[in-house]
């Protein structure tokens, strides 16, 4: 099985790729338009340098060779959303060539990263079609991979990794990833066009893999074709269109002279959440996936994690708990509030909105005295809810930590006290 992708990412610029129209989301259709993005006769494109700079940053992050002098081509096809009946895009002169993305157990090669313009939005009604040219000319990069992905898991990992890489270089794609999927189980390549979102991409791939393997099992050969994905029944449908390069009739875009990108600065150090998570997980004996989830798409969380583990002197599990709180309560959890928050966590107090408000006011946890009797009662309740616990404990006394945490958190009793009482109770049980 081979899966390749053509991922489309809208670049976060203020103006469009070839004109000064705004890229802002507006409700009123056809308001952010001008003769250039409408393709009026006599208008000409002029290149938005900021879009090129961001594209160069992406190419750099995906380990591409950077083309120092980029050029554009015209891709000609007739469709109502394409105002000039050709799209300005890139081929040999693409900003990035021959890159790669490293996954946990494999590599995905990037064939090229090209800058191109988005067509208009097509709104289909029952009896007519509407066009919104606000989207026409929005800068995109298309990331074209080799067909290196060989499983659904790898596809999911690649998309996640790609999104996090983009995020950490400042390309915060608020809109979902859009991509065309190329899947071939046998010789012929099937292209599934315009799938939006990581979940849909993975679902579409799963369906298509199943569809093709069933054809093969019954002795058939999947046809070379273009299909589209339908979310509702989760299936792919043949689009009955066959396009080849022949029909696009590429020529160099003669209105844009070659553009040198050597003067465009890109961030030198790309913060890689995966690398940070892996290093910290190893060093502090934590779970890599948990850490990655805590800091992915949140640079503040990443620096707080680093601070918590490396500088605050707090136990790793407390820091992880604090990060979990940060995920829910945001900015209130920071370097300054971390020590106080740690007090609450260590006392086993459930962190909720009230606690966060107390922390913001600088109030320490209230001393709640829970009697030994009550504590014992809570522990016994928990033990009878988990009848298998005793057996587990016999094999591995370490599981006691789990029980301590649970009771302590649920009832706001300091961990040490709970631990003492549990040991006392267990000792009796095991006599």
């Amino acid at each position, binding site marked *: 099985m081979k899966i390749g992708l053509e991922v489309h990412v809208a670049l976060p610029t203020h103006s469009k790729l070839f004109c000064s129209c705004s890229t802002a989301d507006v409700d009123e259709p056809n308001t952010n338009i001008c*003769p250039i993005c*409408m*393709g*009026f*006769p*006599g*208008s*000409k*494109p*002029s*290149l938005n340098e900021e879009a090129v700079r961001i594209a160069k940053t992406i190419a750099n992050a995906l380990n591409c060779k950077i083309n120092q002098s980029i050029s554009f081509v*015209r891709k*000609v096809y*007739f*469709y*109502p959303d394409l*105002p*000039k*009946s*050709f799209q300005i895009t890139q081929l040999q002169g693409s900003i990035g060539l021959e890159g790669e993305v490293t996954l946990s157990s494999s590599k995905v090669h990037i064939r090229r990263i090209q800058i191109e313009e988005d067509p208009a939005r097509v709104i289909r009604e029952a009896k*007519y079609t509407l066009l919104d040219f606000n989207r026409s000319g929005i800068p995109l990069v298309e990331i074209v991979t080799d067909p290196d992905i060989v499983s659904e898991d790898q596809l999911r990992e690649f998309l996640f990794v790609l999104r996090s890489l983009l995020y950490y270089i400042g390309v915060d794609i608020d809109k979902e990833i859009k991509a065309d999927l190329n899947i071939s189980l046998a010789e012929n390549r099937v292209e599934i066009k315009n799938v939006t979102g990581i979940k849909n991409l993975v679902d579409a791939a799963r369906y298509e893999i199943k569809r093709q393997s069933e054809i093969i099992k019954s002795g058939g050969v999947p046809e070379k074709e273009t299909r589209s994905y339908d979310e509702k029944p989760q299936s792919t449908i043949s689009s009955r269109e066959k396009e*080849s*390069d*022949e029909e*696009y*009739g*590429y*020529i*160099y875009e*003669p*209105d*844009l*002279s070659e*553009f040198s990108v050597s003067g465009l600065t890109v961030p030198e150090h790309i913060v890689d959440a995966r690398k940070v998570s892996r290093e910290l997980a190893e060093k502090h004996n934590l779970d890599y996936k948990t850490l990655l989830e805590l800091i992915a798409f949140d640079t503040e969380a990443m620096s707080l994690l680093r601070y918590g583990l490396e500088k605050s002197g707090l136990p790793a599990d407390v820091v992880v708990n604090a990060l979990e709180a940060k995920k829910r309560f945001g900015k209130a959890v920071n370097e300054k509030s971390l020590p106080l928050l740690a007090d609450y966590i260590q006392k086993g107090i459930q962190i909720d909105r009230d606690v966060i408000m107390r922390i913001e006011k600088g109030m320490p946890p209230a001393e709640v005295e829970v009697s030994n009797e009550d504590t014992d009662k809570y522990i016994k309740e928990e033990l009878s809810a988990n009848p298998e616990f005793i057996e587990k404990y016999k094999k591995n006394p370490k599981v006691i930590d789990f029980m301590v945490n649970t009771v302590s958190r649920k009832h706001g009793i300091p961990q040490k006290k709970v631990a003492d009482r549990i040991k006392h109770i267990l000792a009796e049980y095991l006599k």
Partner: protein
Amino acid sequence: MTYVNEFLKKEKPADYYSKLLEELEEKNNKFHAFNVLNKRISDGFPISVKDNICVKGMETTASSKILKGYIPPFSATVIKRLEKDGFSVLGKTNMDEFGFGSFGINCEVPARNPFDETRVAGGSSSGAAVATSIMKYHAAVAESTGGSIAAPASFCGVVGFTPTYGLISRYGLIDYANSLDKIGFMARSSGDIRLLMSKSVGVDPADTTSVDVKLSDVKKEKIVVIDELYDKIDKNIKLSFDSSLSRLSAAGFKVQHVSIPEIDYSVPVYYIISMAEASTNLAKFTGFKYGLKVDDFSKEYNEFFTEAREAFGEEAKRKIILGTFIRGASVRSKYYEKALRIRRIIRDKLSKVLDDSFIISPTMPVLAPKAKEAESFSPIQNYSMDLLTIPPNLCGFPTISLPSDYIDGLPVGLQLTGGQFEDNGLISFGEQWEDSFKYKFKYNIGEL
């Protein structure tokens, strides 16, 4: 001497512009120089604008039915610059549809030659040349892809100037072939060209191929004739050209002959590149955003735009079909990419010659043909008429076409080619030429 300065100095009657328009309207019925006349012109030196250059608020069709009714919401950069400097748009001039032609006959109502109404005006900037030939105080903003300024200028006996590619912004020009298109001028004297150039050149952020350079006024004593081109000129034109060369020798120029065998590839290379680009430029005309509108929205998009595109003329359709073929993946390297390489080779060869000399030739290899005769030419015959104007146009070198003789009452043109950015050197050559050669005009509309 410039007609612009003469015009500015002269006292003008209050009804000057209305009289001018009146007379032009009447003459236009005969010569068809203008597609649109600007009835509101009331001051400034009159300039006409080729109908493929956008003027805000004025119908601009490039003489194509498919653009009927297109009123651009903006003006071309060159028009904005000239309007700021005291020039006023008098109207839009007739042309071969989208610039596709050498005789001005590929349009609804072809312009006619003021020296003989049965003959063509030349193309594609036919109306620009006719307007310059019949009006005393006027200059034309025109455009050349492969010779569209020089050819009609020579047939109508006016000065035609095609600048170095990139010197004048193309923003606002309805493209024929973007890597070849150059906006330029026609006038009755080289001095007027110098003035128009000084107001028009300079980098424009809206056209990324425009350049910012200081033009030098180079003087060259050596002028070179390319043998391969000389051999293909009509006999009567050759005789006239030889006498022009003698005149230049007498004036102290050194005339030399060189052989550049590669020059023979200029015409096919030019048509391959220009058709490939033209076919992409024409793709945008689909009949629903501007110009001709198809009202029947019940059709599928493919049927809908196919119907709209029936409005293209025959030559436009030929360029779409051939251009689309040339771009096809299976032949692209054989034609398009090879043509791009040969263009570079020819440019290098000519560049070397132009290091220390100007290249000289007649502008056209024939006298202006009769309209009936031109209509019977095959496409190949048509294309080969451009053999003298294509080499410099293909390479983006500047040229000036100067009236140099009159055979049986018909003007003959002399074409000088300079190196890149030697535009002012060519204009100086023209001024020197005009010191000893007086141009003839049959009409002087707007005389003061």
